C-alpha cells in the first residue's frame, strides 16, 4: 500500500487563529477587488464592459513598442497591447470608450496593414461587444452565483446543520475572493472565461468542504463524549490523505494545461490552479474551524444519534 501520508494527528483547529488572520487578509483583498470591479476600476474584460479585441498573427517578429507607437499615431492610443512571444502574436484591446459603430476592429487591421506593409498577418480573432451586452452578462452571472449560493446553503443546512451550510458557503466565498484578489493584484484581465474558472473552483471547494463535513457529522454521531474541537480535528486528519491525493491529481491536470494549453486556456487554468490550492486549504483551515464559532449550537446531529 503506497501512502503519501500515514495516520496523522495534526492539531489543525489549534492553528485556527493564524488561519483566520491569513484568510481575513485574502478576503479583504478579494472584497477590495469586488469594490474596484463595481466601480469599474479593475481590469475587466471587454466581454463585461464592452469594447474591441483583435488578435493578429504576424509572419515576422513584431515589436510591441513599435506597434504601440503606430497605434498612437493613428489615434488609437488607449489600446492595451499584449504579445504572445514565440509566435509573433499580438493582442490589441480597446475598451468601450470608443463605440462599436466606428468599426474599431477594422481600423486596427487597416492601421497595421498600412504601417507594416512587409510584415503580413492574419486576423486570429476579433471581438466587438457593445456595452449593453456586457452589462447584461454581468447581471446574469451575478444572479446565477447568488442563486447557487442560496441553494447550497439550504441543501447543506438541510443535510447537516444550519451552521454547516453557512460555514461551507463562507469557505467557498473565501476561495473565490482569494483568487479574484490575486488576479486583481496581478492586474490580470477578468474575462468571462476567468469567471467560469471561478465557478469551477467554487464547485471544487464545495466538494472538498462537504467531504470533510461528512466525516465530522459521522464522528459527531459516534463519539459524543469528546469535545467538538477534538472530533473535528480527528475528522480532518482522517480525510487528510484523500484531500491531498485528490488535490494532487487535479494539480497534475492543471499544470500542463497552464503551461502548454495555449493562450486561451492559460488564465483559466491558472485561476483553477490557485483555486484548488486555496480550496484545499480552506476546507481544512477555514470551513471546519468556522464550525467552532458556534460552540453552543444545540447540535441536531448530536441529538439524533
Amino acid at each position: 500500500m503506497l501512502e503519501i501520508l500515514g495516520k496523522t494527528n495534526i492539531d489543525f483547529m489549534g492553528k485556527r487563529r493564524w488561519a483566520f488572520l491569513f484568510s481575513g487578509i485574502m478576503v479583504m483583498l478579494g472584497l477590495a477587488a469586488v469594490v474596484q470591479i463595481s466601480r469599474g476600476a479593475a481590469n475587466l474584460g471587454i466581454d463585461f464592459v464592452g469594447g474591441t479585441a483583435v488578435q493578429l498573427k504576424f509572419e515576422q517578429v513584431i515589436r510591441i513598442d513599435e506597434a504601440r507607437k503606430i497605434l498612437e499615431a493613428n489615434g488609437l492610443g488607449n489600446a492595451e497591447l499584449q504579445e504572445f512571444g514565440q509566435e509573433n502574436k499580438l493582442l490589441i484591446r480597446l475598451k468601450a470608450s470608443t463605440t462599436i459603430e466606428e468599426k474599431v476592429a477594422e481600423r486596427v487591421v487597416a492601421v497595421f496593414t498600412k504601417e507594416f506593409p512587409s510584415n503580413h498577418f492574419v486576423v486570429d480573432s476579433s471581438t466587438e461587444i457593445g456595452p449593453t451586452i456586457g452589462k447584461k452578462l454581468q447581471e446574469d452571472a451575478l444572479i446565477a452565483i447568488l442563486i447557487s449560493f442560496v441553494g447550497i446553503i439550504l441543501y447543506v443546512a438541510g443535510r447537516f446543520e444550519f451552521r454547516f451550510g453557512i460555514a461551507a458557503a463562507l469557505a467557498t466565498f473565501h476561495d473565490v475572493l482569494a483568487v479574484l484578489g490575486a488576479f486583481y493584484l496581478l492586474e490580470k484581465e477578468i474575462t468571462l472565461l476567468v469567471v467560469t474558472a471561478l465557478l469551477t473552483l467554487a464547485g471544487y471547494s464545495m466538494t472538498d468542504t462537504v467531504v470533510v463535513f461528512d466525516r465530522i457529522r459521522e464522528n459527531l454521531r459516534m463519539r459524543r463524549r469528546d469535545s467538538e474541537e477534538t472530533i473535528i480535528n480527528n475528522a480532518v486528519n482522517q480525510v487528510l490523505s484523500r484531500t491531498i491525493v485528490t488535490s494532487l491529481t487535479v494539480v497534475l491536470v492543471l499544470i500542463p494545461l497552464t503551461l502548454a494549453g495555449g493562450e486561451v486556456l492559460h488564465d483559466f487554468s491558472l485561476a483553477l490552479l490557485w483555486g484548488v490550492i486555496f480550496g484545499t486549504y480552506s476546507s481544512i483551515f477555514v470551513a471546519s474551524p468556522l464550525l467552532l464559532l458556534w460552540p453552543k449550537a444545540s447540535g441536531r446531529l448530536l441529538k439524533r444519534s
Partner: protein
Amino acid sequence: MKKVGGRLIVLTLVVVLSVIFFIPSYQPFYQALPAWLKAVMPNKGITLGLDLQGGIHLVMEVDEDRAVEIAVDRSVVSLQDLLVDKKIPVESVTRTGPTQVTMQFQNAELKAQIQKMIEDYPAFLETESAGSANMLVWELRELEIKRIKDSAINQALETIRNRIDQFGVAEPMVQRQGLKQIVVQLPGVKEPKRAKDLIKETALLEFKLLDEDNQVKLDLPARIPKEKEAEVLRQAEAKLPVGDQILFERAVDKDTGREYRIPYLVKKRVMLTGDVLSDARVSIGQFNDPYVSITFDAKGGREFDRITGDNVRKRMAVVLDNTIYSAPMIQERITGGRAQITGTFSMQEASDLAIVLRAGALPAPLKIIQDLTVGPSLGKDSIDKGVQATLFAGALVVLFMMVYYRTSGVIADFALALNLLCLMGALSALNATLTLPGIAGIVLTIGMGVDSNVLIFERIREELRGGKAVRLAVDGGYAKALLTIVDSHVTTLITGVALFLFGTGPIKGFAVTLCLGIGINLFTALVGTKVIFDLMNQRHKVEQLSI
C-alpha cells in the same frame, strides 16, 4: 454483495449506446460506414463551438426608430404624389419629427380638402395644428408604431436568412433573441468581413431623377477626393433647392487607382424602389466588366415603363443605400421590365450586390452590438494545444492512479474512461455545442470522477486497516463513501442547475457539461467500478486486495 448480472447488462447497454451516439461526432469514421447503417443511426453529433472551429457570432439590433422614420418618409412621398395628382397646391409636406408629418399651404381654404385626405392614410391621426389656418400636422398612431417595429425585426430576420442561404454557409443559425435582437452564427466562415458586410448592408435600392437644371446653377465640382464629401455638402446647403439633395457616386481613377467621388444634385422623390424586383443576376459586359442585371416584377415593370416614358432624355440615378452607382441618360422608353446596374465593382462585389438585391432590403439599418470573429487558424491552434495538454494531463492522472492504487487504480482509470465515453455520448445525443467553457466543465467532471474513486479507495483502505476481509472491506468502503459522494455531487449539481437557468451563452455551455457530467459520474463511480470489484470477488476469493 449483490448479484452482478443485472448491473453488468446495464453497464454494457450504456457503453454501447454512448458509442452509437458518439460516432456521428467523429465524421471520418461515420462517413466510412455503409449507408444502411447510417440510415438507422443518429446522424448528428457534437458541434464544435465558434471558439474551437472559427466563425462569426453576431448579435444585432434593428434600429427600430429608424424603421418608423423610414415608413413615415414613404408616406410623405406618396402624399406628395397624391397631392400632385389631385392638383392641390401645397407648399410643403415634410416629416417634422420621428412620427410627425407637417403640411403647409398658402391658401387656407384648402385645409378642409386636405383634412379629408387622411381617410387614405388610416395609420395617421390629425393633431392640433396650433391654431394655424395654413398648416396641418399628422401623427403616426401608437398602434401603428408598434406594428412597424414588430414587423421590422421579422422582416430583417427573413432578409438576413435569405442572404445567408444564398451566400452558402454550412450550418448557419439566425435567431431572434428577446424583443429586438437578432443572433447570427456562421461557423467556419472563411471570409468573415465579406459575410458581415453582406448581412449588414441595408441594400435599399432607389431610382431617383437628377435635377439637371439646378445642378448647373449650383456649380458643383466635377469630382472630389473622398474625404471632401462633408465639405461639399456644407457649402451647398444654403443654396439647395427645396425637394433636392446631393448624393455622391463612387468612382475609381483608371490611371492612378485612387477612389474619388462625383457629386450629383438629385430630386428627393423616389421614383421606384428595389421591392419591385423579381430577380438580380451578375452579367459580364463588353469590356469584361461585371454588372448586375435586374428584372422587375409585373407591377414594377409597368411603373418603370411609365417612368422612363415620361422622362426620356433625362438622367436617372440608381441609388443604393444613398450612394449613386450610376446615373445614365434615359434614351427611350424601357418596356421589357429590365434594367442594369453598372458601376465600378469587382466580380465578387457584383455577385454580393446581386445577392442582397435578390434577398431584399432590410427595413432599417442594423446595429451590431456584439461581434465575435474567430479565425480558423486560432480555432485550430486552441484545439490542438488544448487537446495535447489535456491528453498529457490525463496520462499523468492515469499513471498516478495506477502507481498509487495499483490494480484498483487501473479500475479507477477504467471508470474515468467510461465517464468520458458516456459524457461524449450524452453530449452527442443532445447535439450539444462544445465550447471552451464546456471543456472546462468536462475537466471539472473528470476531477470529481477521480475524487469519487479516491474517496472510496481511502475508505476501503481504512476498513482493511481495521482488519476486515477484502469482500467486506470493499462493501463497507462503498457504503460509507456513498453518502459523501452523493452530498458532494448534489451541492455541485445545485451550482450547475443555477448556472444553467440563469447563465447566458458560454456559462450555459459550462453548466450543461457540468450537470451531465455529475449524473454520469455518480453512475460510473457507484455502479461501474463496484461491478468490477464484485466480479473479482465472485470468481475467486481474493485474499489480498491490490489497493
